[in-house]
């Protein structure tokens, strides 16, 4: 594939090549989208190892299913959907983890002096209950609408709104947000 004058081939071009079996094209797609996929996996699993596994599985599934991608959403959204299915599937299979929410929340508040740092913010988001965190991350970090989030998670829009409200309240509490 010639890249002369077009160093960044569009996703659609790379997808067509990958569907034809071109793994180099798929590698380019991987390198273009892995940060966004891994970012979501890391925030939802709260585990580096799990996030890497989920990221890897996401791209392997994407390779298998690429011929069925019809471009009705962006590739990025499609990959997020696969990643979400992978993360949520693993959660269903795994036993529920006790996150000691109250303790962590208290520690976060006690250590808070002034505006929350990025690390504190990420940690506080990590302490949110699963569903609230999923909704909050998709909407507030990745910019999906209520409707898009509800569709991605296969939940009602009303549930989505309630969960993001809950997440915001918990986050404000955890960080001792002054305008609470």
């Amino acid at each position, binding site marked *: 594939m010639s890249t002369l004058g077009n160093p960044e081939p569009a996703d659609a071009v790379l997808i067509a090549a990958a569907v034809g079996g071109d793994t180099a094209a798929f590698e380019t797609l*991987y390198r273009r989208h892995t940060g966004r996929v891994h970012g979501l996996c890391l925030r939802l699993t709260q585990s580096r190892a799990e996030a890497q596994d989920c990221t890897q599985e996401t791209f392997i599934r994407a390779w298998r299913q690429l011929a069925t991608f019809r471009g009705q959403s962006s590739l990025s959204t499609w990959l997020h959907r696969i990643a979400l299915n992978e993360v949520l599937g693993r959660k269903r299979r795994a036993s529920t983890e006790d996150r000691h929410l109250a303790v962590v929340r208290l520690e976060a508040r006690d250590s808070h002096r002034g505006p929350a740092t990025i690390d504190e913010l990420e940690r506080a988001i990590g302490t949110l209950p699963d569903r609230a965190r999923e909704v909050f991350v998709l909407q507030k*970090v990745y910019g999906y609408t209520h409707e898009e989030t509800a569709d991605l998670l296969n939940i009602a829009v009303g549930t989505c709104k309630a969960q993001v*409200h809950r997440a915001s309240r918990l986050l404000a509490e955890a960080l001792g*947000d002054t305008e609470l």
Partner: protein
Amino acid sequence: MTNDDAILSAELASRVGRLPREIEPPGDLWPGIAARLTREDTSLATLVQRLERDVAPDRDLWPRIEARLERPAGIAVPLRLSPVPAWFATAASLAAITVVALIASLMFVTTERALAPEGDDVAQAVDAIRAELAKVQGERLVIEESLQRDADNLSLHALWRYAYQTELDLAGKAEGLVDDYEGV
């Protein structure tokens, strides 16, 4: 400003909005992914290419399969085996098309009918899935017959795996629908 925005201070809401969307993995995951892709080599296009190369070199299967993917429909293609060598290319090609069409049909069933079925819709969706399951099972048996005559054919092995995985997926969908309906 929405209600949940009002809960967070403007400063905190702004900080959340500025969190990085991309977080690169600590190591390069591509070598592991590439190894899996090479080992499994399960893309539809790769399977079709193998069939075109090894089994039916005079046929261009992909446009026909792609057309079926555009407008999914469960179409059972009758397979007639004969003792002459030509049977093999025809049978394997038609089996490939049928399996792919059934996979596409599965997607149609799950997206159009089974995502939010209620009452009678559940029964209809389950019946549709069971009908598809029977078709896929039939095609798998044909592929197994072909394998008995050409046990080393990698394309047929890959097709068999596809058919078997599709059977499992269909059975899982039917089971999930019944569980959901019965409130399990």
